[in-house]
């Protein structure tokens, strides 16, 4: 896979980072608990779905389900982490399109979501094509094919 970085960013055991602190961009939720950069084109994020996550009390009052759109948010936050790791802390990425997203299992409080993103340079300069495999336990939760603009 084509490298995103001038130099490989990982050597030895990948470091898992616990995500904390104030937000640097608007987001509905802290959509990742931990993030691990596996290589300069791969990142894995993990998120425990919690009933008291922001916004979830309304989705739905009768039974909490992590909205499908929030899986897009989880993948987004993982991709930004990789982009800043490979291109520097000032680098950023904006979602420019969803070619295909497919959700197959609803996530409930207590479920652990794992999102594995594969990133490669997009067809146009300054873009990124990302495939995110979302799983919970042994079940497939979603497959997301997305495009980002790098900034």
């Amino acid at each position, binding site marked *: 896979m084509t490298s995103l970085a001038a130099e490989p960013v990982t050597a030895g055991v990948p470091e898992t980072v616990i995500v904390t602190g*104030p937000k640097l*961009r*608007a*987001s509905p939720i802290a959509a990742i608990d931990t993030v691990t950069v596996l290589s300069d084109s791969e990142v894995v994020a993990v998120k425990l779905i919690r009933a008291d996550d922001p*916004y979830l009390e309304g989705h739905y009052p009768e039974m909490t*389900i992590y909205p499908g*759109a929030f899986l897009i948010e989880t993948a987004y936050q993982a991709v930004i982490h990789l982009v800043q790791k490979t291109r520097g802390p000032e680098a950023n990425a904006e*979602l420019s399109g*969803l070619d295909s997203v497919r959700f*197959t299992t609803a996530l409930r409080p207590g479920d652990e979501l794992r999102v594995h993103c594969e990133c490669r340079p997009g067809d146009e300069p300054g873009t990124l094509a990302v495939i995110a495999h979302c799983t919970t336990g042994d079940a497939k939760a979603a497959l997301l094919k997305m495009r980002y603009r790098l900034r």
Partner: protein
Amino acid sequence: MSSQIGGTMLDYADIRRIIPHAHPILLVDRVLEMDPYDRIVTTKTVSGSEPCYARMAPDLGTRAFAYPTSLLIESWGQGGAVLWMERIKAQGRERAGSLILAAAREVELHRSVYPGDTLRHEVRVDQYVGDNVIFSGTSFVGDDPVATVGYAIAVMRPSEGLSWEA
């Protein structure tokens, strides 16, 4: 249907009776137009006081306040849910289960949306298939398209066994 507010066909009180989404993720403020049950036009005004803007770092630039795409898509989709639930009611039925986005394709995001912008969502239902609905549409701020959705499918599924293949 309650009070009419400047071209409003359904207001917030109506909408929260129609779809199961509740505060703070009920992301439709008004329904402006509805062609039963093929097309709907809704609005959602983005405010800096929404939870998505909570706990942000100081001294961030404008871009940091772009309305999250996840909420934009959710807000657009909820317009489809209003149309769908109104159709079910007109059929003398009741909602049976949760409404879930199963898939989307050909979604293009044209520009960012910021606090103070009012989103106008146009949603067309392309097909009702049993307890599934296929829809498409565009979101605008003023006359500018901010997002287009080529294809989306939502499903209504019983609360048990929430796994499926659309």
